[in-house]
């Protein structure tokens, strides 16, 4: 168990360092790390501290929170297909963010942007949970997700097209596919408070999610406050997905792939899967972000492309596997 924790943590550290060392400026590893730490004020430090470091930090924050949210959602709904991106939470968060930016709300006070995205995410999570019912059967879940995603994407596109700015219409790709390119420390500070809040709420769900393995009745009889658990899950997921999407766009499939891969390593226990997925999610997004800069550095390849290339086939595989049992 601690071996897994150690292994995953090591993975995060190594990939974080790799993320700091990869970039088009072509600086050597020794130089870049010393510029980062010492800060001599020259262009090298500017590159390391203002361009690469926020990127690596955001990758860790967003990856961890998406993994955590995915594991929590799957634990609650007892369904391995549940994932914030798939069920439309990321898309709705993107809509909230786009509305905030293009109505000028985001400029009015600092935290307006993540709050708006959070509201969008909150609406989606609550709606899907209500539609899916207590025992989120796969079919209802996926259908609800399709409906919410489609609606969110349509409205996002509409808002962008109505913008007076000629560049706005092309932003849809960023919002739908996500990217960490050219993020700044400002984005890190914007996202951090809500991510911490959300992570705190989600991390405390372990005991309840374990008990839910036996079903809602048994869990309630064992003393779990189910309405409170559901509320913490909704708010926690909305905080975490909302703030991440506000600064990096909708990045999908992390919450699906990571819990699925790590489940056998934690004995399928939901509480253990929570922290394992957090670490695994950070690894996945860091790896994708490094890959995006290595594979096609000249083109602005979006993060969501890579996560979808990995995640969508896995999703199909899961559906096939579960076809007999659940759906």
């Amino acid at each position: 168990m601690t071996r897994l924790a150690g292994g995953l943590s090591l993975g995060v550290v190594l990939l974080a360092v790799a993320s700091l060392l990869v970039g088009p400026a072509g600086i050597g590893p020794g130089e870049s790390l010393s510029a980062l730490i010492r800060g001599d004020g020259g262009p090298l430090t500017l590159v390391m501290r203002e361009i690469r470091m926020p990127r690596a930090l955001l990758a860790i924050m967003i990856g961890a929170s998406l993994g955590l949210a995915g594991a929590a959602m799957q634990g609650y709904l007892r369904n391995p297909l549940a994932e914030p991106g798939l069920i439309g939470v990321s898309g709705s968060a993107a809509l909230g963010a786009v509305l905030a930016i293009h109505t000028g709300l985001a400029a009015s006070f600092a935290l307006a942007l993540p709050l708006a995205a959070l509201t969008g995410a909150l609406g989606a999570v609550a709606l899907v949970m209500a539609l899916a019912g207590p025992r989120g059967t796969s079919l209802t879940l996926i259908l609800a997700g399709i409906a919410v995603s489609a609606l969110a994407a349509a409205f996002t596109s509409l808002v962008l097209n109505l913008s007076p700015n000629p560049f706005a219409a092309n932003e849809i790709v960023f919002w739908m596919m996500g990217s960490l390119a050219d993020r700044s420390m400002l984005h890190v500070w914007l996202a951090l408070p809500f991510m911490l809040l959300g992570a705190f709420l989600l991390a405390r769900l372990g005991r309840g999610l374990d008990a839910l393995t036996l079903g809602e009745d048994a869990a309630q009889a064992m003393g779990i406050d189910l309405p409170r658990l559901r509320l913490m899950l909704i708010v926690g997921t909305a905080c975490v997905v909302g703030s991440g999407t506000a600064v990096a766009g909708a990045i999908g499939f992390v919450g699906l792939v990571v819990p699925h891969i790590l489940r056998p390593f934690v004995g399928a226990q939901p509480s253990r899967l929570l922290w394992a997925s957090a670490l695994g999610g950070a690894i996945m997004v860091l790896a994708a972000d490094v890959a995006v800069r290595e594979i096609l550095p000249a083109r602005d390849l979006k993060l969501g492309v890579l996560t979808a290339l990995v995640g969508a086939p896995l999703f199909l595989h899961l559906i096939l596997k579960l076809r007999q049992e659940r759906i």
Partner: protein
Amino acid sequence: MSVSQHPFEVMLCRLLLSLGLAIGPGVAFSEAPGRVVSMNLCTDQLAMMLAAPGQLHSVTYLAIDPRASAMAEEAEAYQINRGLAEEIYLMQPDLVIAGAFSTQATVAMLKRLGIPVVVFDPAQSLEDVRDRVMQMGDVLDRQAAARALLDEFDARLNALRAEVAERPRAVLYYANGYTSGDQSLAGQILAVAGFSNVAVEAGFNAGDTLPMEVLVMTDPDLAITSRPYPGASRAEAILDHPAVTAFRAGRRSAGMTDRDWVCGTPYVLRAIEALSTVRDDLTGAPQ
């Protein structure tokens, strides 16, 4: 094209004309088009400069936007179109002038409806600017006006063209992180004004994205960035990134205005003039 006695040739000419095939540069109409519609910002401006009174009927909505167009006031006098086939067709034009990047479907539709369409390629160099002026003169049958405009252009250009000992280094950086190399109009404006283009040093050309890291590391004397449009966009948000702001803080910067830089019209001279002033300032040369 002289009128031939041969009935077949006459019929063929009429057939070709009525099918409205695209006509390349250098081919004159038998008579000047009386009702011209332009559906591209750059051709709008060239047409406004060269057309006879009453010849030009409509320009695009971009022509009245002072950010994008150098002739925003003049454009108010014309009908405004949004580049859609239906509205242009209903204007009953004798000729439509489009750009190479105008919506293909619209251009194809207009041709199918039997309207003659001339397509102008964008100008990539100062030579191209001269060529486009001549081409517009041919298309509108206003060659004399075109030659007069060109004479003026050449005179001003020669006055501006500098033989410089010192070429300060400049970088062009727009929304989305785009830059322009030598093989572009912007790059040429830079070169004529007496700067050396940092992007070319680093191996980037027109239309390439200049990674922010490379921008920061290049350390040029002058940073030329675009002016933001109203409303917000992620593409322009890049110019407010702390790294870019810090980068600009320590050095001289100039703004590039779309109206003088983007279109291959004689207004590029205004851009060159502005930059020359900045260059003189930087090198401490006498005005």
